[in-house]
C-alpha cells in the first residue's frame, strides 16, 4: 500500500483556486488525516477548492464520504468544490459503490454535485 501524501498547491495561473493533490492510498486509516487536510485546504481556498486525484492508488468508502462531505461544507461556505484529474481507481470505486448519479443531493442547489454525469 502506498503511503498517503497530501500536498497543497496554489494554482499558478488562476487566482482564487486552491488545489489539494492527493497521492497514494486513501483508506480508513488515513481518513482522519484526509479530513483535516480538506478542512485546512477549504479554509485556505479563496473561492474554489479543487482536488487532484490523479495519483490515488487506493480508495474506500470513507474517502468517498469525505468527498461528499467536503462538497457539502464548501456549499455552506459559499465556495465551490471540484475534482480534477480523476484516475481509474477513483472512477472504479465510485461506480462500484453506486455513487454515480444523474442528479445531486438536496443540498446541491447549483448542480455542482461531483458525481453527476458519472465520474467519467
Amino acid at each position, binding site marked *: 500500500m502506498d503511503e498517503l501524501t497530501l500536498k497543497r498547491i496554489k494554482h499558478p495561473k488562476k487566482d482564487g483556486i486552491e488545489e489539494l493533490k492527493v497521492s497514494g492510498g486513501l483508506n*480508513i486509516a488515513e*481518513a*482522519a488525516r484526509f479530513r483535516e487536510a480538506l*478542512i485546512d485546504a477549504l479554509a485556505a481556498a479563496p473561492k474554489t477548492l479543487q482536488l487532484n486525484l490523479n495519483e490515488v492508488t487506493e480508495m474506500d468508502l470513507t474517502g*468517498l464520504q469525505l468527498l*461528499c462531505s467536503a462538497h*457539502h461544507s464548501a456549499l455552506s461556505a459559499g465556495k465551490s468544490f471540484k475534482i480534477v484529474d480523476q484516475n481509474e481507481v477513483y472512477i472504479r470505486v465510485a461506480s462500484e459503490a453506486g455513487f454515480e448519479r*444523474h*442528479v*445531486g443531493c438536496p443540498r446541491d442547489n447549483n448542480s455542482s454535485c461531483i458525481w453527476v454525469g458519472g465520474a467519467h
Partner: protein
Amino acid sequence: MIDVHRQAFKEEAYELLSELESSLLELEERPEDEELIGRVFRAMHTIKGSGAMFGFDDIAAFTHEVETIFDMVRNGKLKVTKKLVNLTLQARDLIKSMLDGSDLGNGGDLDASFQIISGLRELAGEAPPEAPAEASDEPVAVPVASEATYRIRFIPGHHLFTCGSNPLTLLAELRDLGPCNVVAHTGGFPSLEEIDPEGCYVFWDIILTTSRGEDSIKDVFIFVEDDCEVKIEKIADYGPDADNADYKKLGEILLERGEISREEMDSVLGEQKRFGELAVSKGIVEQQSVMSALVEQQHVKEVRQAVQQAESASSIRVPAERLDVLVNLVGELVTVQARLTQTAASRGDAELVAIAEEVERLTGELRDSALNIRMLPIGSTFSKFKRLVRDLSSELGKEIEMTTDGAETELDKTVIEKLNDPMVHLIRNSLDHGIELPEVRQAAGKPRQGTVHLAAVHSGDSVLITITDDGAGLDKEAIRAKAVEKGLITATAELTDKELFNLIFAPGFSTAKKISSVSGRGVGMDVVKKAIEALRGSIDITSVRGEGATITVRIPLTLAIIESLLVKIGNDSFMIPLAMVDECVELTREDVARSHGRNLAHVRETLVPYIPLRERFRVAGNPPDIEQIVITQVNGTRVGFVVDNVIGEHQTVIKSLGRAYKNVEGISGATILGDGSVALILDVPQLVQSVEAEAA
C-alpha cells in the same frame, strides 16, 4: 401430466450430459479455464435441481456429490486433474445410465456410484461416504427458483467500517448473483466539521435480478446482519404470467419503499405533471430517492425485455416423429403437385396452368423448408467421437488427439443417426490399425502423439466426411496376401491401389494378426460399406504407407427426396439416382452383335460392362432397335444399365417399399409419378454386386 414433465426433464438432462461431456474433454485440455469449470458446475447443478423436482431422487443425490466437488474447483480449492476429469466422466456415464434405467425403476449401480463418490471425496481430501446406501439418502438441495428481481435496502451500522467490514465487497458479491443496480444515498452526510471520518453514513438501494433465490441474498449479508439493517423485498418475477414489459409507476415504487404516504401520492397525482418532478417540487421526497426509484423502474423494464426477447428467440421442442410426418406429407404433396402440373398442361387451360405453376412454386418452397427443419449440424456426432477417441486411446496405450473441422455442416437428422455406427467402426479402425504405439512412432521419426482428423464439408447435394490419420497407412502387401488367401483375387492379378484398398470391404476380411477388443474381428468394414450404401453413399480410401490413411465417405444430404434420372423399359418406369450417373450412350443391335454376348460396350476406346435391365427384371416384350446405356460410377468402377428410353431428370420423393418387399434385391424404394404410376428406384451398387457374384 407428470410423465410429460419427467420426459421433458430426461430430454433436457440428456442434452446437458452431452454438453457436460464435451466441456469435460475441453477442460482436460485447458484445466485453468474458469468458464469451462462454470459450465460443468452449472450442468451438474441443473441436473440436480430439476432431477429432484421431478422425483429422480437418486440422480439428484448422486449429482449433488459431484456438484460439491466442482463447487470446490470453482472456488479454487481444488485443481482440475486428469483423475478428476476421469471420475467426472464416469459420473456422467453413471447419471446417463440412471436416466436410461429410470423407467424400469432401476436406480443405477450403487456400487459404481459409491466408488465414484469415494474417489471424488478422496480427491477433495474428505472422508469417503460411510456406506453406499447412505449416499443416496443425503438431503437434496431445494430446486432453484426461477428468476426474480429483489429490492434491497442496505443501511450499514455507523461503526461498520471500524469493525473491518467493507460494504464494497458485499456489493461485489451481490453483483455476482445477477444483473444489479446499486444506488448510494449520499444526501445525509454531515459537513467536514461534523463528520466522523471513520463512521458510515452512506446507505444503498440495490435492485438485483437473480435466479438464486432470496436466501442467497441473505447469505451475502450474513456476517454483517447484526450491525446493519437489511431489507429484502421481491418486487417482480418473470414467470409465464409476467408478460408485460411495463413496470410499476414511479409513485407506487416510492410508496412501497415507504418514502411517501398514500395521501401524499394522491395529492401529487391530482396534478398533470411528471410524478418525480412534482413530488420533489412539493418537498415530499428527496431527489435522490426519486432517482433510486427510477433506477428500479428501469432495471425491471430491461430485465423483462431481455426475458421476452429470449423467449421469442428461443426454440421449441418437437418430437422427431412429428417432423417425419410433416416431411412425408410434403412428399405426398410434391407427388400430387406433379400430377396437377401434368394434368393442367394436357388440358391446355391457361387459367389452370397458372394455378398449377403457383402450386408448384409454393410446394417447392414448402419442401425445402420442411427438409431444412430436419437438418442438424454434424458437430454433436463429432463430439461423441471425441470421447470415443479419448477412451480408446488410453485402452490401447496410444497417445491420440482428435481434431475436427466443419462441425457446423448440416445433414438430415435421420442420416446423422444412421451414420453414427459406421463412423464409430471407421474411427476404431484408424485408432487400432492406423496409429502406431508412441514408441513405434518415435522410432519412425514421427511425433509420439498421433492425430485423427475428422472433417465434414458440403459438396453439391452431398456431404463429404473424411477421417484422416497420420498412422502407418494400409499395408498393400498384407492386403494382397490376405485377398489371395481368401480367394478374392488370383496371385497374379494386377490391381490399382484403389482396387486393392477396396478389398478390405469384402466380408470377413481382416489383416490384423491379433484380434483386439477394439477391432480386428473382420466384421467391421463390410458392415460399414453396407451401412453407407444403405444411405446411398459411397466410401473411398487413399493411403500412403508410413504416412497415414484417409477415408472419404460421401453421403447425400437427405434421404427423403433425391434427384434422379427417369428411364423406361417397356411400360415400366425406373429411377437411377442422378448422383451416380456419368453419361448416357446408345446401344444398337450391331453393337450387341459385335460384342459376342459379352455385355461389354465400347465407349471412347474403353470397355464398359453393362447390365441389360430388361433381361434382369424379366420385362416382357421386345427391346427397341436402339437402346440406351446409362453409365454409372460406383466406388470408382463404371457400369452401364441398358434401358429402352431415357425420359429425363426427376425430383423423386422416396417411398419405402414396405416390409413385404424389404428383401427385394436391386430396388431401394419407389416413387409415384405425375400420372399416378409407380417408378422403382434402382439400388445401383447392389445390382452391380449381385451380377458380379453371379458371374464369379
